């Protein structure tokens, strides 16, 4: 096989079909019970879908759990804590589930004697999951210049998939940083990609940031810098 072809990076995209569970929560205890019981993809949906759904709004609304706790239950402290979970740290949805449980249980222990506060009628939390369809796009890159061009052209769904979703799939072929490092030897650039916190910016801004990092690397190469 051609070496160039072996080293190419294929851009993928994903589209999700949302599944309703019929399960609802009207207070913190029911939310906690739900978080413990639902599928990992349900945890994924409620901690990530807002990123693509509200991609255009900056600053974005927080994840679904945080938004509901803050707005429907009026618990601003817990809402803020759940909004601030550093999702970038986790590559397993069970770890995110454990962190959510930990934060809610800690609050519950502290307010054990206070009766459960219910959400207003009609504002219950609805648990939803997803079926994810992953497609290869027509975009692939064999070198850094092509990689930059692809980053500029692919859909926001593709950027979203590679940055936010791919790590949960545990497939090396989806990982930008791994390809930059292993196939191109661009270790510093890979590290810069890894260090980004993508959760605090819109995907279009993220696209610009990624492109800028690649351009900087190309300029460094041109100038003979490391």
């Amino acid at each position: 096989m051609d070496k160039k072809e072996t080293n190419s990076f294929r851009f993928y995209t994903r589209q999700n079909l949302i599944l309703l569970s019929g399960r609802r929560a009207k207070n913190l205890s029911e939310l906690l019970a739900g978080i413990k019981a639902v599928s990992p993809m349900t945890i994924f949906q409620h901690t990530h879908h807002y990123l693509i759904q509200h991609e255009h709004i900056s600053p974005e609304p927080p994840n679904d759990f945080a938004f509901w706790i803050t707005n429907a239950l009026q618990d601003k402290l817990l809402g803020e804590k759940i909004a601030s979970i550093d999702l970038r740290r986790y590559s397993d949805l069970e770890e995110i589930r454990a962190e959510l449980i930990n934060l809610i249980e800690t609050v519950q222990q502290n307010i054990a004697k206070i009766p459960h506060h219910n959400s207003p009628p009609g504002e219950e939390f609805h648990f939803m999951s997803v079926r994810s369809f992953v497609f290869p796009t027509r975009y692939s890159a064999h070198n850094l210049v092509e990689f930059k061009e692809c980053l500029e052209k692919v859909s926001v769904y593709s950027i979203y998939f590679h940055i936010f979703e791919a790590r949960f799939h545990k497939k090396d072929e989806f990982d930008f940083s791994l390809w930059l490092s292993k196939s191109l030897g661009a270790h510093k650039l890979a590290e810069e990609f890894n260090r980004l916190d993508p959760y605090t910016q819109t995907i279009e801004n993220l696209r610009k940031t990624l492109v800028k990092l690649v351009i900087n690397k190309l300029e460094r190469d041109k100038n003979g810098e490391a």
Partner: protein
Amino acid sequence: MVKLREYEQFVGSDVIDELELCAGRLQNVVVQNINSTAVGGGVAEILTRMVPLLKELGVNACWNVIKGGEKFFEVTKKMHNALHGQPVSFTREEIDLYLYTNELNRNEMDLKGDIIFIHDPQPCALVQAKKSSGNRWIWRCHIDFSNPDLFTWQFLKEYINKYDVSVFSAPLFARKLKIPQVLISPSIDPMSDKNKELPDELINSVLERFGIDKKRPIVTQISRFDYLKDPVGVVKVFKLVKKHIDCQLVLAGGGATDDPEGAKVLDDVKEIVENDPDIFLLLLPPASDIEINALQRASSVVLQKSLREGFGLTVAEALWKSKPVIAGAVGGIPLQITNKYSGLLTHSIEGTAFVIKQLLQNPDYAKRLGENGRENIRRNFLITRHLRDYLLLFLSLITKNKEVVYL
């Protein structure tokens, strides 16, 4: 006929490219839509637009309509009302007629689709024709299912559970079922008369026709005269606002003349209006899409102060026109408005009046909310997203039943 690529101007070429990518796996798959009417009503409107677009994408979509007598449709109308929450009782004869008509259609129709896509309760019992190793069946519920009459729900549930998958328009409508339930929200078509761009002259001529002053702020609610849309509450809100801000209220909708309850609601509204010249009660005939479009575009703030709501597509229509929208947090409205980001959700007359004043006196804030709202609709509630969800739904029936499908 509108071509798919014409939507590129609204959603970008990447969205159309990805629709083609999804459809690539569905070439020549026969999707047979079945409903109860070829014209009139939301379902027929959606299918009229959706079937040609699916065909253009290479899906072999077709559309059949069941036949039924007047009495059958009286029964299904009752069923529709019952699913909306009205307490209704059925006689044995009515139930038998429903099942008999479905059976006649089942015997007459060529149920040839790889996927049989049944819309709403009228043809729901056609699923009796489903064979264990045959085609896949979808039941799509287009109506508000948040509080269905128990008897009707139990009766229909028996048939719904025979399908492969069910589809609802909002999370609130999900029920306990043995089969998977998918969320597919309705959508608006940016190229329809109700949503397309209009020249200023046309908007002005509509205002002139109704005697509305374009120089003063206009607060609008578009909805039929129905207690659940709370038009009386809207007038009370307006009176609180008008104490401090010189503005006008437009309440526009149809359905009063042929609906006894609608006429009563209108009387109640007229009573509280007390001949205020700044309140415009407009009874619009059914074919008034351009007028509704113009009124929404001329508005400073749009209200949808519903107490109960199906999906509330009038919210999407107003947001698409970049209008700041204030709405009740009911039905599908919270899907369209994230409070304080893409619109405002309120729960009381006083709260609604307060935020109208905020919006009218802070045009930059109002503009930002409206722009965010339009962007939310552009990305999530246009017909192209609806089309994508249908393609994924079909894919889900012909691929392995896994949470992640690599294609």
